[in-house]
């Protein structure tokens, strides 16, 4: 039968609500209000895990998120399983299952435990040193290392839970609901600041809520009683929102904080369904009050990691808050007064305290006297030199400390015990503070890092600001609140505090043993098994920067980020290297403060919401007609329309032939469309395009090429003059947003004198592009009244018309080289337009074609696609498009760069056509082009940019950029591939209908 270590009823534990849960397959009982850790301790279970490297048995060490050892896999084997969860943070519920990690076959018998005995062979940097040689063996090493590393197991099935994001704005954000946080939030809210108080635990009050040191009084009450009344009053305060189970994970600049609100983790499985599990709060606060408290430090001595060795403050919390005794024979080991409070707390509940080992020479405070009166033996100036007990502590050995604290003397005394509380002083939790970019200063006397230079509107109050005694906390909090909230009085003005707390402390970072350091195991980082010896070794090997020592020894790198041992690591480095700790600095505390689930980070952006996509108004038709889609920017574009099980190649060949032989139709709605108006619109176009625009008649269209200021092609498209001061510009699908941004940039910053207004109308129009020799007949059927003769409606012109009652804009422009029309209607009529075209075109076998066929058809004509045939290093001259660059215009964007020595080089890469010797050989896009095969190294002349098998020419065609290609017409080159060399000939990039006769066919 397991022992029951409940010592008294606690108001935070509901003993009427008995809960059963499983740990490592065995059923235990706890009560509502227990954490997994407190419930296990109540069942006398200390051994909960194995350490990372040596697989040493480890027990519960703390009562909070700083826990390094008790990390468990929750609900293993289910779709809600989660690794690396701290048992101290799991609230138990009926049906909870948890298991130990990093042990096989079980936590009681772990084969990896052999590493403990081999530990002399695993010094710091073991992996770096050992697995270097020979280099070719790395793959074999990696296999074993990967299998032996890692803590918990990631879930392998889909997460069943819902996650959410919420943006929160407040005047004052208070982080942490201990005594300081509660009083700060209360006073802020009372003074009309919209206040948010967040607390990572499920109860407010921090450690003061169970503070029953009889010598401390606030307004003549025990601090816990006084604080309970204050918490009660919070309910009636307006402007105050309180979020418990909410942990701030990151504190970014400008008071932008991310917090995780935990909503269902403490509920039974049946109550979790269809609820939001965790919510990421994105908080923007005008002022931030950090009241994150302090973490108790352990002491670093030989074998300080056995199950049963805990923080003194944790033992007190388990006893006072959870009503659990962590052991039946307790000993404390301390360098300050706080262990005495824990000892008295146990004593008052009738729990046996064997002794207190204190490294100080003495202390005269009332609490110490009280311990003496209770008959608890105190060993002054003593240190623990060793401990025994493999799976549970069973004894400690102590010796007298020398005056300098560097060695031990005298005879060894052995004390039998099953629980040891260590108290090494307090470390302010400044993690969030430094994340905000604010700077710390080391207090050499108190041996702590304190907030120093704030970079945003923030204050640190209570123990995270360096105040540990209640009277100091209240006094300094009061002043800080007045200053930061700019108020004259607070609730704290009239508070009377009596205390008996002494700050006397003796600080020794690494406690001596009777054995040399090489023979002892003083753990500094429990989770990563880094000992003081490893740190000293790193220093001997020449590491000096704290950041390097951290990475070399892995100190502070686990899921706990070294919340307990970092200060000791720094202290040991400083002592060994003979420098001051303040000069050493500290490692960077990076977000998240406590781990976040991926679900919380991603929120609702999962599945089809993972990335935004845009659909054209005709999208449903494409889906119904079994189109395959491709992503172009954010757009889903119809790629090709396979019928009867066609491959992509077969479909594209069919579509391409149909478009040239009869009629094809393309959904061109995704092209960017910018409406340009204003009296200087023509002048504006003159400046942004390479060609001239002033003389473009109303109702005419013109192709334009846009450069960057460096002379490189940026975008292209057809622009139509709708009126005297009105144009509509089209851009590439992917470039639309950037083009608009660039044009706005020039308008607002370089040419504010121009009267021009730009509006994106991409989403407002749907566009069907009708092409092929029968396109005219089809359009005639749809709009019988429109005169489609070449005289009235020639190539590169525009008509406004109506299809039934629907207003439409028709441009006779062509990207395929065929006679074609682009019909634009209001987006909501897009599908209707498309269906009308399909119906009218039925007798001509109108064939819908996708982007792939469009690319093939334009390649036959040698038309470029910006971004495919260009890559930001191509000028219009390189593209052999000199005809579009106006010589007469004084200036346009990029003009000057076309005359730079570099852009005028003859041997730049230039766009050419390529024909393969074997007409059936289709080149790979991206393939390299060379002129000599027997060179070493072989000189690359360029690469293939577009390549297709042309069904209309019945041969393979390609576009390529080739160094000096312009003057290579007819020259034979090679495309070397993995297994062969392909012979190609440089050709004119216009392969089809060189005289453009088909435009008017």
């Amino acid at each position, binding site marked *: 039968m397991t022992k029951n270590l409940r010592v008294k009823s606690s108001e935070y534990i509901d003993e009427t609500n008995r809960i059963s849960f499983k740990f490592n397959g065995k059923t235990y009982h706890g009560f509502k209000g227990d954490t997994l850790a407190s419930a296990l301790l109540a069942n006398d279970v200390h051994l909960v895990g194995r350490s990372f490297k040596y697989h040493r048995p480890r027990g519960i060490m703390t009562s909070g998120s700083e826990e390094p050892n008790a990390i468990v896999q929750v609900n293993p084997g289910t779709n809600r399983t989660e690794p690396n969860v701290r048992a101290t943070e799991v609230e138990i519920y009926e049906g909870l299952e948890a298991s130990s990690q990093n042990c096989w076959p079980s936590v009681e018998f772990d084969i990896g435990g052999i590493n403990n005995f081999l530990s002399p062979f695993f010094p710091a940097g073991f992996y770096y040193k050992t697995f270097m040689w020979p280099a070719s063996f790395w793959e074999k090493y990696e296999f074993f290392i990967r299998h032996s590393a890692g803590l918990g197991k990631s879930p392998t099935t889909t997460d069943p839970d819902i996650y959410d994001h919420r943006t929160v704005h407040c005047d004052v954000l208070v982080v942490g609901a201990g005594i300081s946080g509660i009083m700060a939030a209360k006073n802020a809210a009372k003074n009309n600041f919209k206040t948010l108080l967040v607390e990572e635990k499920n109860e407010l009050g921090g450690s003061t809520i169970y503070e029953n040191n009889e010598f401390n009084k606030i307004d003549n009450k025990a601090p816990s009683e006084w604080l309970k009344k204050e918490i009660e009053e919070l309910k009636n305060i307006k402007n105050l929102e309180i979020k418990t189970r909410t942990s701030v994970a990151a504190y*970014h*600049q*400008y*008071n*932008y904080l991310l917090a995780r609100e935990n909503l269902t983790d403490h509920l039974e499985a049946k109550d979790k369904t269809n609820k939001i599990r965790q919510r990421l709060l994105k908080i*923007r606060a005008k002022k931030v009050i950090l009241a994150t408290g302090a973490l108790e430090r352990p002491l670093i001595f030989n074998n300080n990691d056995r199950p049963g060795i805990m923080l003194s403050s944790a033992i007190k919390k388990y006893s006072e808050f959870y009503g659990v005794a962590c052991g039946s024979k307790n000993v404390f080991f301390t360098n300050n007064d706080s262990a005495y409070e824990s000892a008295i707390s146990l004593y008052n509940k009738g729990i046996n305290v064997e002794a207190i080992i204190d490294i100080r020479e003495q202390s005269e405070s009332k609490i110490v006297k009280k311990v003496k009166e209770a008959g608890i033996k105190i060993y002054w100036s003593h240190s623990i030199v060793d401990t025994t007990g493999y799976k549970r502590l069973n004894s400690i050995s102590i010796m007298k400390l020398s005056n300098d604290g560097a060695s031990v003397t005298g005879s060894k005394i052995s004390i039998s015990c099953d629980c040891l509380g260590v108290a090494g002083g307090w470390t302010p939790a400044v993690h969030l503070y430094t994340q905000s*970019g604010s700077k710390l200063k080391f207090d050499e006397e108190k041996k702590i890092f304190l907030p120093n230079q704030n*970079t945003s509107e923030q204050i640190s109050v209570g123990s995270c600001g360096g105040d540990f005694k209640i009277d100091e906390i209240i006094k300094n909090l009061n002043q800080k609140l007045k200053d930061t909230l700019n108020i004259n009085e607070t609730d704290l003005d009239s508070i009377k505090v009596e205390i008996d707390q002494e700050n006397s402390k003796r600080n020794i970072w690494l406690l001596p043993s009777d054995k040399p350091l090489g023979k002892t195991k003083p753990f500094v980082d429990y989770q990563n098994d880094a000992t003081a010896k490893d740190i000293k070794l790193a220093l001997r090997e020449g590491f000096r920067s704290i950041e390097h020592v951290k990475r070399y020894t892995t100190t502070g790198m686990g899921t706990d980020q070294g919340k307990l041992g970092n200060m000791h690591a720094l202290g040991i480095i400083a002592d060994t290297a003979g420098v001051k700790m303040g000069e050493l600095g500290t490692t960077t505390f990076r977000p998240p403060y406590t781990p976040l689930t991926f679900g919380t980070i991603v929120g609702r952006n999962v599945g089809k919401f993972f990335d935004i996509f845009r659909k054209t108004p005709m999208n449903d038709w494409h889906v119904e007609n079994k189109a395959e889609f491709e992503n172009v920017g954010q757009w889903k574009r119809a790629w090709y329309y396979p019928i009867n099980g066609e491959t992509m190649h077969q479909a594209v060949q069919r579509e391409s032939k149909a478009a040239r032989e009869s009629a094809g139709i393309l959904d061109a709605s995704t092209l960017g469309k910018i409406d340009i108006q204003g009296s200087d619109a023509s002048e504006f176009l003159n400046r942004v395009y390479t060609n001239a625009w002033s003389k473009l008649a109303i109702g005419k269209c013109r192709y334009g090429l846009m450069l960057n*200021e*460096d002379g490189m092609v940026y975008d292209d498209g057809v622009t139509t003059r709708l009126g005297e001061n009105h144009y509509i510009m089209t851009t590439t699908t992917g470039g639309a947003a950037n083009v608009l*941004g660039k044009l*706005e*940039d020039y308008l*607002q*910053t*370089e040419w*504010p004198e121009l009267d021009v207004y730009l509006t994106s109308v991409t989403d407002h129009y749907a566009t069907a592009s009708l092409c092929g020799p029968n396109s005219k007949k089809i359009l005639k059927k749809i709009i019988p009244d429109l005169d489609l003769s070449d005289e009235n409606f020639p190539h590169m012109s525009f008509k406004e018309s109506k299809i039934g009652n629907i207003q439409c804009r028709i441009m006779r422009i062509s990207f395929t080289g065929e006679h074609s029309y682009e019909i634009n209607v209001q987006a909501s009529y897009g599908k209707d337009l498309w269906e009308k075209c399909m119906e009218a075109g039925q007798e001509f076998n109108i064939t819908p074609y996708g982007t792939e066929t469009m690319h093939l058809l334009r390649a036959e004509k040698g038309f470029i696609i910006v971004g495919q045939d260009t890559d930001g290093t191509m000028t219009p001259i390189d593209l052999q498009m000199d005809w579009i660059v106006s010589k007469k215009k*004084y*200036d346009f964007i990029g*003009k*000057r*760069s076309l*005359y*730079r*020595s570099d852009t005028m080089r003859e041997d730049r890469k230039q766009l050419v056509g390529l024909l393969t010797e074997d007409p059936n050989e289709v080149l790979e896009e991206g393939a390299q082009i060379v002129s000599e095969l027997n060179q070493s190294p072989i000189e690359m002349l360029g690469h293939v940019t577009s390549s297709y098998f042309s069904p209309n020419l019945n041969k393979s065609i390609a576009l390529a950029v080739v160094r000096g290609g312009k003057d290579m017409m007819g020259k034979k080159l090679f495309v070397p591939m993995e297994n062969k060399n392909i012979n190609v000939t440089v050709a004119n990039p216009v392969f089809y209908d060189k005289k453009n006769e088909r435009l008017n066919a």
Partner: protein
Amino acid sequence: MFLINCPYCGERDQQEFKAGGEAHIERPKQPTELSDDEWAEYLFMRKNIKGVQFERWNHAHGCRKWFNMVRDTSNDEIKAIYKMGEKPPSQ
């Protein structure tokens, strides 16, 4: 994540904005008169200061207006924001 006070819209989250590089580099009025070196100076040369820097920003997902910002690049403190065409504040 900065909190940027758009001179037209007020305080907005950084994700609504796009950075546009160094400010107060005027496009030469007569580019064709410039030597290659002078043109390269305009085109390529940027100060990239560690410290107080004058920058252009665009409220791309808001009013689409461009404006200027004085920012200390060493600690990301935004020292001033002013409209295009306005004189930069003296330091």
